[in-house]
């Protein structure tokens, strides 16, 4: 099977996907209500999409193609409100967060659909353990070669994005010590991690053909890379983020990605190289484990700083682009979060440390998800 052609998309347009948790209001454990919720929102007149996900206790919302921060935020708000009123009718809670803090994976059920059934058969318990909730952001690319440049360029910012979005400190009832434990579940999949270092679309097609000939993959969907090209949309898709606890943060992170992409596309500030990836998994681990305080090793200078400092530095570098895109206010909020050392994972952990039982933590997550303008 050959790779489909890279579609035309508007450069720097964005699309945001959020995987959400569906929980009961009695014990705040996950509940299998995706089917009921989809039925309840089937007639909703709202931009974007509401889709089933791997297990019956998850749902995915996705915006349409957005120009920037404002339109993405507006669409996410409308989707959240639609889901919110359906959820009240069904007496369930909806929340963000990369993992459910105490769900037991053995109790999850796979959503009834051919692709989900296939994945479940292939991956066995991994598919159920994959009850984790991520934010994916698409960025429109004018050409496939630019898409690959952007993919490798953005790979330097993966730790930044992990630290900003981290919201999964608890797994199966325990504190993992990680800020984003969700990514550890993703790593169990055989085709996860980073994309191969190829810089032209022709080379990428050749790589895909070879992989396809091995019989290991049949479409781009079989790759669980941190960033992967999505030829059918003409985009690259950044997939390392946990679903934040609020849509304000989700939209701000999407705006950060869009601004970074504009900076990379227009200024072409770096020469991407295979050696960039020498430090990739180290940096990525540091971000998952320690968030802003993690060590960041610069791929060229090999200088050691913290991820927090790197985020602040990057925000300074891209300031002009943020203003052009109308993303400066949103990025300003991310900036102050980094200086204050606050993110969702720390918020959850502090709340837990003050004695909040995990079910009440999930209840607070649901309230936060519905809260207007919370970051």
């Amino acid at each position, binding site marked *: 099977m050959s790779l489909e052609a890279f579609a035309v998309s508007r450069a720097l347009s964005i699309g945001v996907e959020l995987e959400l948790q569906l929980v009961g*209001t*009695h014990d705040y454990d996950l509940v299998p209500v995706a089917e*009921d919720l989809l*039925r309840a929102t089937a007639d909703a007149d709202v931009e974007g999409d509401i889709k089933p996900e791997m297990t019956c206790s998850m749902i995915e919302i996705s915006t349409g193609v957005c120009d920037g921060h404002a339109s993405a935020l507006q669409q996410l708000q409308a989707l959240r409100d639609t889901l919110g009123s359906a959820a009240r009718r069904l*007496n369930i809670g909806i929340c963000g967060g990369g993992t459910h803090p105490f769900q037991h994976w053995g*109790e999850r059920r796979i959503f*009834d659909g051919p692709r989900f059934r296939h994945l479940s058969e292939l991956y066995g318990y991994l598919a159920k353990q994959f009850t984790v909730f991520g934010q994916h952001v698409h960025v429109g690319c004018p050409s496939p070669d630019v898409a690959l440049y952007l993919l490798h360029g953005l790979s330097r910012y993966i730790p930044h994005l992990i630290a900003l979005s981290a919201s999964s400190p608890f797994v199966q009832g325990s504190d993992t010590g990680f800020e984003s434990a969700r990514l550890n579940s993703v790593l169990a999949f055989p085709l996860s991690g980073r994309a191969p270092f190829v810089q032209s679309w022709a080379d990428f097609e050749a790589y895909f053909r070879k992989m396809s000939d091995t019989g290991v993959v049949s479409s781009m969907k079989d790759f669980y890379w941190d960033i992967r090209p999505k030829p059918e949309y003409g985009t690259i898709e950044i997939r390392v983020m946990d679903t934040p606890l609020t849509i304000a943060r989700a939209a701000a992170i999407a705006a950060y990605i869009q601004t970074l992409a504009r900076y990379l596309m227009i200024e072409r500030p770096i020469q991407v190289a295979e050696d960039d990836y020498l430090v990739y998994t180290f940096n990525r681990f540091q971000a998952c484990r320690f968030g802003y305080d993690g060590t960041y090793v610069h791929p060229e200078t090999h200088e050691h700083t913290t991820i927090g400092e790197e985020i602040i530095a990057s925000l300074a570098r891209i300031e002009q682009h943020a203003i052009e895109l109308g993303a400066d206010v949103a990025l300003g909020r991310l900036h102050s979060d980094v200086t204050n050392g606050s993110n969702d994972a720390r918020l959850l952990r502090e709340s837990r440390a003050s004695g909040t039982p995990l079910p009440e933590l999930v*209840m607070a997550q649901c309230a936060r998800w519905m809260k207007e303008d919370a970051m």
Partner: protein
Amino acid sequence: MDLNVWPAWPLHFGGLLYAGLALAVTAIVGEVCRRADIPRVAGYALAGLLLGPAALGWFDAGALTTYRGIVDLCVALMLFELGIRLDARWFGANPGLLATAFADIVLALLIVFGALWAAGVDSDLAYAVAAIAVGASPIALMRVASEGRASGQVTDRMYALCALSLAASVILLNLAIGGLHGANRDWLLAIAHPLYQLAGSALGGALIAVAFGAIRKRLNPGSEQGTAAIVAVMLLAVAILTALRLPALLAPLFAGVIVKWRDPRPHLWPPQFGSIGGLLVIISFILAGSTISLDLLAAGAGVAALAIAARTAAKLCASAAFGPATGLDRRKSIALGLALMPLSVVALLQAIDVRSLYPEFGERLLAVVGAMTLVLGILGPIATWRALQRCNELHGGDER
């Protein structure tokens, strides 16, 4: 000197031996059912019957009178938990649910009463049977749900409808008792007694809720002390309610609803009080079975068969008609009606309480209700299990 150091022959055993054997038999029947993909609680109901006067005769009707407190405690704990699962705010967000519950109650009352009356049953008895048929067994539903780790929309609605229909059933039966007082020309009592029961239960519920709130502030209900404290409150409540001649049904249910209304946080303890609760349930079924004899069943069988058919039709109609308006699809709506089939210990207690006031009438009522619980206590939980299974709401897992 004649010291009692050597055992007398034949050996004399106290009641403990039978209690132990009965527990073992019931648990084993439950386990056999479980292996056959039938919920344990159906097996408990069956075992209770076998151990009682209907078959083995290890226990007779006196057993329930003696140990009534245990059954009341079990029911109170279950109903309190059921109440806490019922978030009254849900009805505001989805008024269709109230309509479903209303239809469920009214249709069951009218259709069962109508069917029995048309068949020539006297109207007092027809009404009392219909009032009891309105309810559903909280113990059976909750045990089935916890055994299959059920969760989802049908499960949640099943809890809600069970709570509302049971409350309605208790109130409707109170009115029936009022009617019996009236038939004796005691008009003041006919009005005052149902009012006393309702007001007393409401007040009792409020007091239990306050007590729980006070415990909740100091103890985690999931901890050992927390659970002990809740059981203690329920024991006190049952003792006081019994002394006041109030049924220990509505008050704990009201209490649970009030607690959840005032404090929407999750209130979690081991579901149905873990193994203590499980033991109480088994004992309750043994004691309930002790009230049912073959003579009684024979007397009530015909009317019971009719009442069961009418009740089944009514509950299915109500949920099939109103379920879709509340956000369920057709299949789940019908499943909801099926899930509400069980009728067991609580229904028997209701009939027994009537009998304590009006022995002759109560005996006839108990005959019908006993025969109904024979069928619906065993087949009902199986219907609930299958309905939830078909809607994919069981997590397949076992309790432990």
